[in-house]
């Protein structure tokens, strides 16, 4: 494994999540983009016996890569060599009885208690910018034992309270709030991963910064949080991607370059002494 010297922040984010994948565990992943790439990279490189399902009821597939860049679920490629083909209610019920160890999903906006908005920006019922709704994320966030959220490190995305709770985190943060709302016991948010940082939750169920990328400081990360998270006593430095990880990501998963092409996502270069973010001149 060789540390890469040139990569995109999005690629770093996916590699960070891939390294969290644990062997022998089950994952319910959102059926496209980074969550799917992270579980596949994790399986192929670190945890071959991790398995995943998607909300259309694909159980433990060995997908034909690369995916169709737009539509992956209910497709022959995504469901290839699965151990089972079921339905959405089957996937939901498998999680509801506790079979899914961990969920991986994307978020538009997240708050201090890990609640996720994917429905609307603005005051609901008044003028809003409408988004797609929770899709499968509400079930993933409610029913998996723990949840990893992938989002951008942008000020407007880390807020005190989301405009609309589409998928539940720790709700109002009080002890037992999820259980009082009817959600299964001992479930909830576990990690948030951005291109710059990793967060967990402290005993008060508040978002806590625990690790940062080598090219940013804690203050720079906090500057990109509208609501400031708790900062751990010791903030770790994240490992950068390896050449092997990037090779897989670029040649098998993100072959269309969707990650590296995203705006607001910087390139990171090793300048001989340190990793530095390339800014447009």
């Amino acid at each position, binding site marked *: 494994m060789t540390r890469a010297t040139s990569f995109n922040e999005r690629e770093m984010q996916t590699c960070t999540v891939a390294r969290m994948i644990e062997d022998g565990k089950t994952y319910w992943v959102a059926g496209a983009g980074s969550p799917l790439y992270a579980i596949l990279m994790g399986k192929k490189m670190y945890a071959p016996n991790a398995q995943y399902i998607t909300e259309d009821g694909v159980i433990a597939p060995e997908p034909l890569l690369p995916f169709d860049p737009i539509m992956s679920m209910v497709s022959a490629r995504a469901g290839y060599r699965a151990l089972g083909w079921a339905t959405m209610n089957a996937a939901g019920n498998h999680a509801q009885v506790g079979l899914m160890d961990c969920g991986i999903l994307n978020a538009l906006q997240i708050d201090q208690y890990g609640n996720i908005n994917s429905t609307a920006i603005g005051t609901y019922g008044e003028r809003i910018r409408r988004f797609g709704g929770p899709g499968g994320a509400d079930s993933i966030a409610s029913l998996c034992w723990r949840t990893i959220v992938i989002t951008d490190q942008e000020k407007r995305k880390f807020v005190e309270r989301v405009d609309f709770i589409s998928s*539940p985190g720790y709700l109002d943060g009080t002890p037992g709030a999820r259980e009082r709302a*009817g959600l299964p016991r001992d479930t909830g948010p576990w990690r948030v991963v951005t291109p710059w940082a990793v967060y967990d939750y402290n005993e008060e169920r508040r978002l806590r910064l625990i690790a940062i990328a080598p090219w940013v400081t804690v203050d720079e990360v906090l500057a990109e949080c509208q609501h400031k998270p708790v900062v751990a006593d010791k903030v770790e430095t994240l490992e950068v991607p390896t050449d092997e990880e990037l090779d897989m990501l670029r040649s098998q998963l993100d072959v269309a370059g969707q990650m590296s092409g995203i705006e607001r996502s910087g390139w990171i270069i090793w300048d001989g002494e340190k990793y530095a973010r390339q800014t447009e001149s």
Partner: protein
Amino acid sequence: MATGPTYIEVLDEGMGEFRMPDPDGYREWVRDHKSRALASKLMTAQEAVSRFVEDGDYLAYDCNYLQRGPSTLIREVIRQKKKDLWVAGKFTWVAVHLLIAGGCASKVDCGFFLFGKAIDRFVQERRVQIFEYSNVVMTLRLQAGAMGVPFLPVRSFGGTDGFRYSGAKLIRDPYTGQSVVIVPALNPDVALIHVQQADVYGNARVFGTGIAHQETAMASRKVIVSAEEIVDSEEIRRDPGRTSIPYYCVDAVVQAPFGAYPGECAGWYASDPAGVIEVVVATLTDNLDAYLEKYVHSVANDQEMLEKHVGVAKLLEMQRRVASKEGYRP
């Protein structure tokens, strides 16, 4: 022996409008309208939509316009200018937008759909009312409808703002004494389901994963199945374990080759990426009127649409690009 509470206490409830569940009314509809005879229900998309989709219906479709969904049937609903539909907008990208832009849908139960300028404008102009659920909560509502019960307890959805704008309730469960969310059963007036194979009676086979085709077929008053291929009933009897939907749930069978266009129909053809991008971009940029004019209103039916706007070369290419037939063919 009972130790906990013995009554159901409603702790909280959403304020969203919803169709009141009516399990006995649904049973009576089924008794009076669902044919048990083994009689051919084969008809054209035009006839099926004309007979079975009515203004004001609650409409559910399985999968969606881009993913083995009933795209031919959705186009026909728009072509016939059905009005005031309430649409189950779960696991979908562009279908609800097409139905709103076509003047067909005025209410949507949201699980998931594509964002973009079109939906923003529809919401601002109040052309559509949206009620909030999730994909799985919607399929569980269909499950309740398919079981003939008025509601179903679910372990997700609690605590969300979606709950507040839905027909869900939070109750104290009389067995455990703990909080649990219940959601109202959904019995759509009409369902559109696309499958790979069916016989003329409506025995239908879905290959690959599905969203809730079985629940939807059992829960819906009128069921239109479109199929890539009409097979002989002897073929169904040779492999009964393959039957996903039994005939007595089904009211109309439509032969619809490339019926999921521009989406993929696993095992039969790959998607048309250009066709997918065309409708996605039209949705994101709010240019659906032009899209509908080209693919729906300027042609008499899907055969003419496929001839004029897709062409044999592309259709053959979609067939050649099938990624895998393993498990997708009998």
